[in-house]
């Protein structure tokens, strides 16, 4: 049986030289992301902005967005956003925290909406978040992202050299920034499940990075005389088939979620798809070349290797005979 190969065999792509293109490109994209965030803003859902969202389905025919706007306009709710989606019989109505900020005012507003539309629409979902709760959700979201970055930084520091940990975190921040830009540009709703998407992107981005870094470390121990740039190029080429393969399987799973998973998690799935594209790119083009700028040399990794050997001789003794055997074939 002829097997499918997406990645060509034994590539010798000069990834390190490509950093002269990838760094300015990423710098530009990062700046654009910040600008998009500052000028377009993200479309915060009620989880973070506070307010109420009511999902309606027309009892017959299509949801009349225009008519709903007129009805909602008469209810004294402040700004009301009306959107239809899906198969056109569904619509959402979104309005902010009611003046005065009292919980009872918000409940009364929901009541008014329900009784105004109940003849023609079924109420399928009501989400209402008070200002204090939304403030806490924002806080928890930011805390989660920051904590996860520090936790992983700590783990990588423990497992690898500091240059590895730092470059992994820089690559992850780059992915985060570009994801924020993606949310600002597409105006996809940013809510609690978007935080889940962001944390998963952080996890995925680091997962990708760790796989590349692991190989770089291994190669550095094996070929102590080679330059860092050569080693990094060789390592990235070696893991390239795996990188492409995994990105594809995850992409397929996410694509299925985005198409069939329903509107509730669509913004999550789309953000994740963007996230794996960016994370795959950054692990190859941002993180690995960063090691050179951070001044990593083969001797350092080797030095760490010696330390490990002293600490745990039975574990570290293993790679040695392998390295000797592998040399003639790859050199």
């Amino acid at each position, binding site marked *: 049986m002829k*097997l499918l190969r997406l990645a060509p065999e034994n590539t010798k792509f000069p990834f390190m030289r490509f950093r002269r293109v990838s760094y300015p490109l990423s710098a530009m994209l990062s700046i654009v992301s910040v600008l998009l965030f500052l000028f377009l803003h993200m479309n915060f859902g009620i989880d973070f902005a506070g307010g109420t969202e009511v999902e309606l389905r027309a009892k017959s025919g299509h949801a009349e967005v225009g008519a709903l706007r007129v009805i909602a306009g008469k209810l004294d709710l402040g700004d009301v956003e009306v959107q239809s989606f899906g198969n056109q019989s569904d619509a959402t109505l979104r309005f902010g925290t009611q003046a005065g900020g009292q*919980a009872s005012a918000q409940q009364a507003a929901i009541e008014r909406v329900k009784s105004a539309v109940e003849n023609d629409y*079924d109420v399928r979902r009501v989400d209402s978040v008070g200002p204090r709760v939304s403030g806490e*959700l924002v806080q928890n979201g930011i805390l989660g992202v920051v904590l996860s970055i520090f936790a992983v930084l700590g783990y990588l520091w423990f497992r690898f050299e500091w240059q590895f940990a730092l470059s992994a975190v820089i690559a992850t921040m780059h992915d985060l920034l570009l994801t924020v830009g993606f949310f600002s540009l597409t105006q996809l709703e940013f809510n609690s499940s978007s935080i889940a998407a962001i944390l*998963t992107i952080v996890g995925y981005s680091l997962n990708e990075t760790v796989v590349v870094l692991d190989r770089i470390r*291994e190669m550095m121990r094996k070929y102590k005389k080679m330059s860092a740039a050569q080693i990094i190029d060789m390592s990235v080429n070696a893991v390239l088939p795996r990188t492409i393969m995994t990105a594809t399987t995850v992409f*397929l799973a*996410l694509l299925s*979620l985005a198409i069939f998973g329903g509107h509730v*998690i669509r913004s999550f799935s789309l953000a994740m798809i963007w996230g794996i594209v960016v994370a795959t790119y950054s692990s190859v083009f941002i993180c690995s070349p960063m090691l050179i700028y951070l001044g990593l040399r083969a001797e350092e990794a080797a030095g760490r290797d010696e330390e490990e050997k002293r600490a745990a001789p039975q574990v570290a003794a293993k790679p040695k005979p392998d390295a000797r055997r592998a040399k003639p074939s790859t050199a």
Partner: protein
Amino acid sequence: MLRFAKWKIFAILAMTLSALLTVVPSTLSPAQYDALARALPLWGKPPTIVLGLDLQGGSYVMLEVDKASVLHTMAMSLRDDARRILREEKVAIVGGVGQQARGVQFRLADLNDAAKVLPKLKSLMGSYTNRLGVGSPPLEIDDAGDGLIRVSVTDSGLTERVRHAVDQSIEVVRRRVDALGTREPSIQRQGDDRVIVQVPGLQDPEQLKVILGQTAKLEFRLVAEPGESPTDTEELEQLDQPGKLSVEKQVMVQGEDLTDAQPGFDQRGGEPVVNFRFNIRGAQKFGEVTSKNVGRPFAIVLDNKVVSAPRILVPITGGSGQISGHFTVEQANNLSILLRAGALPAKLNIVEERTVGPGLGQDSIEAGKRAAYVGAVLVVGYMLVTYGVFGVFANIALSVHIALIFAGLVLLGSTLTLPGIAGIVLTIGMAVDSNVLIYERIREESHAGRSILASLDAGFNRAFATIVDSNVTMFVAAAILYFLGTGPVRGFAVSMALGIITSIVTAVTMTRMMIAVWYHRARPTKLPI
């Protein structure tokens, strides 16, 4: 690597089998499930996957104790206490007792009276806390030395009272929600000042909010007569008509003296009413007051609003009565639920509400299933065309991986939410990553000129460290999401974390076993990847 102890193979097969058995009850229809539960009487009902509110429909309501109203109540009762002490000790003050946001202040006419008043004020501490002697005092007594004395509620006194109010509220809320007759409602405290109520499969979420949103403090008071002192009376709004009614501040009987309340119909007009019964103390007091005040109207006051103000025609000594107030059947029903469950100790505000109708929940389940099937088929197909027979091994491991996730959800009793389904679909894509890492490493080693056996061995051994490192990073993200996330998002974190753990077991150990068995049977001369 290719020697696998028999017991290891057996252990893996046993694990797979028990995972499948654990999941089976969750896949049955209700009728089949009942039949199974009857057939297995020894172990009780087999556990099934609990669906989150976003999938089965239902309401999530977060209530918060209204701190401002608790503080107001405390400050008001401080004023009453201060007045009582001054009266009892016969102490003269300059001006009146001044009400402040957190308490009261007054100025003594004679500085020497401070010695009489201060000990009495200090003895109030006990009635403003439930944990005397623990923590900081609930009241701050400020004596400037020039006769001005200020008594105010401290932050810790307020926090303590709010916390106590939450404890009491949980009981009342539970009685109210139970009266709705839904299955498995959940009522939990959250932090110092909140209660979370989760009610699955509710037909009328509006009723839940109506019965949660009211304090339901019921009082019977006499309507003020012309000429009564304004300090003893107050103007209250009326529910069934505009304008205010002046009623006495003195309460005849309170709602806590009720033993029962039932909706019914008025015998004359046929209008919905609430019939109630007093306990012995309530019946006695009510009998006394009504005997003395025949001909006067009295007010039935609910949450400081007059429901109705009937005239006392004859003394009511039987201990039962009727509340009428132009109710609808629904209102009479709700009011009787509230009166039976008792009043909340403080006002509760709805600060977060998430209600999903049963239709949307069902749609979400369908959408989640479809996404999972399509995603799985795509990944399985892709692995098959890329790795051939090794792809088959990876796919078998993948199916066991999915079974293990569901078994984990069942055993942990964790709820499956829509983001949780998304997490499972995502782990389908990610679980094969471990296989990919191993297989690609095997190919590499084989290209480097190693024998089949050596390549297989090196592939598994070398890839393992990478697999652990890369999965730890994903696990950290999932763990943080679990601790900081709420509701459905938490479900996502659980599926992700479970998926990461099970994928290491299945993708590494199981595939290794299958390849070992395959190697011994097929004796390949060439790697099939």
